[in-house]
């Protein structure tokens, strides 16, 4: 009896609370990841998925990847896509958040409307942008032609360089509201008194921004950037619908290339190796995020 009582001490009951989530994570997050890691060290293809022996080939799949030009392109694409998107959506999102933190009529409803891009399913957004950027029937070419900025239609989605630009535009459009709303929330946590006393001391707008707003927003900005990185880095549906990795593999991301290898070409092991590269990169970012947020809490 005493033992049972001892077991149900406060901390142990806490562990019981964690248990359901832990088991859930183990089954639905842990198992697939471990399975995927094992798969990437084997030589599984159509021939031995069901029957036949699966040989362990250790790092062969990974070594093969680094000699594969489509893989290196997709790794580079994923990085530049993520960085470009983060920069633009952060700057515009920040500016909008500052703008809507001012009190003026319609500030709140308009800010609400700006959230719409974040709520639309990504497939819908992707189809919309695919039509906007279409060569002959797209409204973007129509506008540019009407303004006499171009003579000939730009082949946005069928030229490697511009296709990436179109993808970034679409993703920035989705990402802006996400950045705006998180930074807006961060702004409301800064005490008004700080601004009041700063203005009494004679600080200008620019000075207040650099000395008060930015330093106090640091934890928020860190979260926004890191979460944004994770969301953007694993982009899949947008690319799949808009370009499917084309033209000529120019816009393949790690995620789309992994899917293509596994489910279109039946190279399961190679596909899972690509997925694991994605996982390792995101794991680093994730660890960085946890460290950044826990440090923020300690302060």
């Amino acid at each position: 009896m005493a033992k049972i009582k001892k077991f149900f001490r406060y901390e142990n009951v806490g562990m019981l609370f964690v248990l359901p989530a832990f088991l859930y994570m183990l089954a639905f997050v842990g198992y697939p990841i471990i399975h995927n890691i094992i798969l990437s060290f084997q030589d599984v293809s159509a021939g031995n998925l069901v029957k036949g022996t699966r040989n362990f080939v250790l790092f062969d799949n990974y070594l093969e990847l680094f000699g594969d030009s489509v893989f290196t392109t997709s790794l580079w694409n994923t990085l530049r896509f993520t960085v470009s998107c983060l920069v633009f959506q952060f700057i515009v999102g920040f500016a909008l958040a500052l703008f809507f933190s001012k009190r003026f009529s319609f500030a709140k409803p308009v800010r609400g409307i700006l959230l719409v891009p974040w709520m639309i399913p990504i497939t819908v957004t992707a189809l919309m942008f695919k039509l906007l950027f279409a060569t002959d029937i797209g409204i973007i070419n129509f506008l540019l032609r009407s303004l006499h900025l171009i003579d000939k239609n730009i082949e946005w989605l069928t030229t490697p360089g511009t296709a990436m630009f179109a993808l970034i535009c679409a993703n920035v459009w989705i990402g802006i509201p996400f950045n705006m709303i998180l930074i807006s929330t961060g702004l409301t946590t800064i005490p008004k008194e700080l601004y009041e006393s700063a203005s009494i001391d004679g600080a200008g707008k620019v000075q207040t921004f650099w000395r008060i707003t930015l330093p106090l927003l640091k934890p928020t900005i860190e979260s926004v950037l890191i979460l944004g990185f994770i969301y953007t880095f694993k982009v899949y549906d947008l690319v799949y619908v808009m370009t499917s990795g084309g033209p000529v593999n120019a816009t393949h991301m790690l995620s789309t290339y992994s899917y293509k290898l596994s489910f279109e070409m039946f190279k399961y092991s190679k596909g899972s190796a690509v997925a694991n590269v994605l996982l390792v990169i995101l794991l680093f970012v994730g660890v960085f995020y946890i460290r950044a947020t826990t440090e923020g809490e300690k302060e």
Partner: protein
Amino acid sequence: MKKRKLAALLTAVAMMTGILSGCGSKGAESAPAKDAPVADGAFAEQESAAGDAQLITIWYYWENEGHQATLDQLIQEYNGSQDQYAVTAKYVPFADFKKQLSIGASADELPDIAILDSPDHASYVDMGIFEDLTGKFNVDNYYEGTVNSCTVDGKLYGVPFGANCLALYYNEDMLTARGVNVPTTWAELKETAKALTTDSVSGLAFCSVQNEEGTFNFAPWLWSTGATSYDIDNENGVRALAFVQELINEGVMSKECINWTQGDVMNQFIAGNVAMMVNGPWQIPTMQSEAPGLNWKVTLIPKDTQYASVLGGENYAVVNGGNVDGALDFLTFATSEEKVKFMMNQFGYISADKTIAESQFAEDSPYYPFVEELNYAMPRGPLAEWPSVSDAISLAFNQVITGTATPEEAAAQAQATIDGIVN
């Protein structure tokens, strides 16, 4: 204090059981949902009437409602004709079909029968999930290409469901207005397309997406030169790639074709944005209902040195872990001449059985040219690694269309990839 702890504990336990039972009941519920028949009501009746009939499951990927209703009708007739087996069908979207079969294969949750795209057949045979059907069906009268697509190492692993191929559709009014004739050679095709191209109309279009669908549409051009899918880096292969590049560079075909599926191409054609297109017979029912006033005809794809087209269509395959006897019984029923005729006419397909196909359509039917084209149609593969070969080919024509490589470079690169796969 004690009470609070107890409450906390109880909550934790409740949450645990919630999760566990949640999983359990979910599993139980999803099982019948997975095998949901096309028509729920009809199936329920069947089940109660048949009692302990054995379940036979079919997977298919036709999104066309007419196709689904036709398959359902066939299944109901079969279920009504005997009480040993009860067949149900499950729709799996085409984009997910390969993935679902792969996942099903590794998780041991496969249907008893799959109706799958013919070029993928060999890959799944290689996976070892299909039953050897040699000697169980008489396929002597079938088109050679269709039988080859489900034959591996001399053994028959499936039964062709129906055949289709690509041919050239043309907008007759546009041709008449410009006073040009129906093209029969590549040179004529280019001239005709040039004459038909205006500011708002492209002379020619065919799907050039960088995947199996695109390879399917490029194959007739490649094969017409005498090149094969495995031997591209030669005069013939380069000529095919150069021809496609010329069509793009001279503006008679839109570069957007690399983003157009066959359905998109058909929509552009019936909207009057495209004067000629390469497409398959399955578009005919839609075209007739969406654009009844459009005056179009079908002819053979113009040739370089020989007429060529590509064979498409589905095959029935029997999965070897499932209820093989039941599956065979259903297939025997479904491949009888009467049923094949019924299915093919409803689908707008051409029978894979030569004798049925030749009497299937009247000479003035839009389907008729496809029967003629079928004589020149060759299958892709069959090869377990076909998806990789197809990927190399589709990369090559995308490179020349986008101008990122010359035909010579693209051909050499594709050949290097293909040699690495085949040899």
